[in-house]
């Protein structure tokens, strides 16, 4: 059975931060079209702060995710502070004390994050939010493992589904958040949160995949 080690996997969070910082301008630009243009800036700030705290430390993945979740939740504010804050905190909690992370644990982790987000916001699939990335990604992962696929293939399925989910937001009318007041005018552009969520899920899963033994 494929697993990856919690110990020393904290570096995954550093590369997560790198991806977000790289995409700062892009994410703000998307948010500017139907939102307020701060998504990339805020995300980069929060992930950058977490990375600064982690740099040089040999953190476990669960510790690193906890640091990230805590920074987002307590220092960032905006929509992303609470939403991603709770997601990463939940992720961390499910991995806490697990030395070798297998597909079942990974699935548990994903579900806990999703539930955390849904406990704060009330977005559903189709509302043009990060939920449109997260829900199909989790489902694809579970579907793949249920049909007997190994961890690495399930991660691939997760990444593809996340990206397809992100792309689906282009044709959705926003039902929640800032863009919801736009009605039809919100059509034709990606949702910023769905886009950052796809980046996060991809980087996390690529990190896990590269460490599978």
């Amino acid at each position: 059975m494929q697993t990856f080690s919690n110990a020393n996997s904290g570096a995954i969070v550093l590369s997560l931060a790198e991806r977000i910082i790289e995409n700062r301008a892009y994410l703000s630009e998307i948010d500017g079209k139907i939102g307020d243009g701060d998504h990339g800036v805020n995300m980069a700030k929060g992930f950058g702060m977490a990375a600064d705290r982690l740099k040089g430390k040999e953190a476990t993945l669960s510790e690193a995710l906890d640091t990230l979740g805590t920074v987002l939740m307590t220092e960032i504010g905006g929509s992303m502070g609470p939403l991603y804050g709770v997601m990463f905190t939940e992720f961390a909690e499910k991995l806490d004390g697990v030395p070798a992370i297998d597909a079942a644990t990974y699935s548990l982790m994903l579900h806990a994050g999703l539930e955390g987000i849904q406990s704060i916001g009330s977005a559903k699939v189709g509302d043009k939010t990060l939920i449109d990335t997260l829900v199909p990604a989790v489902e694809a992962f579970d579907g793949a493992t249920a049909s007997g696929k190994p961890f690495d293939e399930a991660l691939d399925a997760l990444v593809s589904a996340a990206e397809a989910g992100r792309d689906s937001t282009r044709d959705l009318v926003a039902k929640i958040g800032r863009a919801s007041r736009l009605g039809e005018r919100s059509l034709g552009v990606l949702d910023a949160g769905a886009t950052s969520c796809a980046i996060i899920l991809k980087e996390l899963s690529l990190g896990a995949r590269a460490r599978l033994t």
Partner: protein
Amino acid sequence: VKKFLNNPNEVVEEMLDGVVRAHRDYIEPINGSHRALVAKTGPRPGKVGLVIGGGTGHEPCFLGYVGKGLADAVAVGNIFSSPPPDPIVQCAVAASGGEGVLFVYGNYAGDVMNFEMAAEIAEEKGIKVRTVLTTDDIASSPIEDREGRRGVAGNFFIFKIAGAACDRGLSLDACEAVTRKANLRTYTVGVALEPCSMPQTRRHNFEIGPDDMEIGMGIHGEPGVTREHIKPADDITDAIMDNIFKEMKASAGDRVAVLINSFGATPLMELYILYRRVAQRLAAKNIEIEANWIGHYCTSLDMVGASISILHLDQELTDLLHHPCETAFLRIN
């Protein structure tokens, strides 16, 4: 886009450093944090505390309205982003005089999540919290969804009323009720001619065509209701006032307060031209202007544009509007 900046990532910290130095007569950091500022004279035992807050980029909102007779504390977020729960909790604690604390802030998903988490924590600390979400932007949602609307420059009036109610020693229930009434009787519509740009990117957050304007623009540059060919100032004002009149059930002899607010880059000269027409329209209906404010009261970084807010007064609101206050950007006495 050119700006006076040092490190673009430190822009909020540097601004707040300037704010704290400039306005030490009115506000001071709570436990040394520039993200939670308390009025020097304001909170006191027996008085309901008023906590306001939100993202930055709207200066003098929100910190310019903290002081005696107005807000007791302000929680300060990043640009266009709600503060996290912690500074809000600090504000609640600092503002609390044992009679409960009123949170008043704009209705945005991020603010709601963070302020609600803060309210829970404050309640755990034994502070009773009530919340009034401001929803004065009548362009942001149809009347059927009044509660889904955004809070924009009309905040100015709603804070003022809430602050006066608290300062008069009304109960938490009463403070909440009159603030809710002020919110329901405040009507704002904004128009943008050019976009704003974030200090960190120094690029326009969005684009408006060279001959266009955006009606119903939010104070974070959220797109508005319609994009139209730019019109003369009076036509724009008429369109806004027609919308306001549709919702505001004012009769001849009623009194209102008027706020003509620059979104940042629109100069006073043009605001007076808008005010002129607002005054003409109100006069035509025999509605009296009890008070007016014209200038930069709730901005959106460097956006070119303006908003018109009308507070439909009744006797109680008129009274509270004139109640003395002393803050960095509003003084009545």
